[in-house]
């Protein structure tokens, strides 16, 4: 009986311990999910910003006037067909 009680107590103890451990874990998980959610939102916002920066860059005068292609594959094909070299301007949205 005593042994059973001990076992019961142990089971009870384990259950309580599990609950005690689970609670903060659950909170932590919930907090992590919130954080991840925020990060995802921030990520989406950043992506939208980057897209907007790209559009601003491509709207610049020199892009239209210089006849720049924006598709590398297409540029290579055109270069092969016309037996010309590619003149590549590597830039960033915030670089000259």
């Amino acid at each position, binding site marked *: 009986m005593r042994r059973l009680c001990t076992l019961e107590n142990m089971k009870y103890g384990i259950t309580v311990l599990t609950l005690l451990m689970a609670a903060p874990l659950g909170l932590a998980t919930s907090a992590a999910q919130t954080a991840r959610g925020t990060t995802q939102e921030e990520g989406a916002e950043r992506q939208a910003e980057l897209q907007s920066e790209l559009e601003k*860059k491509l709207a610049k005068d020199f892009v239209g006037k*210089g006849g720049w292609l924006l598709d590398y594959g297409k540029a290579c094909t055109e270069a092969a067909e016309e037996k010309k070299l*590619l003149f590549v301007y590597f830039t960033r949205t915030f670089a000259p």
Partner: protein
Amino acid sequence: MDESFNGFAAKVVPYLNVMTRIEGHPDDDLMTEKGYRGHPTLAFLDADGVVLGRPLARTVKSFEETLQAIGDLAKLDAREAKGEKGLEYERFLLEYLVMKLRGANLTKRGLALKGLDETRQARVDEIVLGVEVDALVLQSLGDAEALAKAGRRMLEILESGRCPKMEESANAWSILARHGEAVEDAALIERCAAGLRKNFPDEERMTSWASSLEKKAAAIRAR
């Protein structure tokens, strides 16, 4: 890019690669794949994507020169393949023009050329001096003493008129201007402003920098 760019652009396929960091944006890493790190970078590639050269300066004149040099280099390869000798100067010059030779390697190859006529020797000297200018740019990033030393040497080179390439270097003008400000030399500061206006007429930040230098020179003169 001015009207003259369109004339040059007709001879090539101009391709603009904007690194965006947008997820899934095509060819975002093309520049690093080609071995370059700094933006902006201009390069000539063949239709298979092989890099053949880069212009020495961001001017249409330099783009044209590089395009010509790439063609001439291919012809030189063919001549050497047929067994022609004594083309070291031509190869040195063309590899310099397409930026295949740079830094210490450029100096070493230039100094190894012997028996050149006066004109060719002067050209080699100018190119080798250009390497020194590039080294001075780095040196000037040190302390005030290093900047002063680099500034004085830059001024010597500028006044010797032996290194026109230096005039196309914004860094060189920066060092000279900072040196001019440090020694309160209004004439030198004005010279830098004029140099910036002459060599970077279409770049707003350069002309704005030139205006700021002109104001500083005027302030020094007014004292």
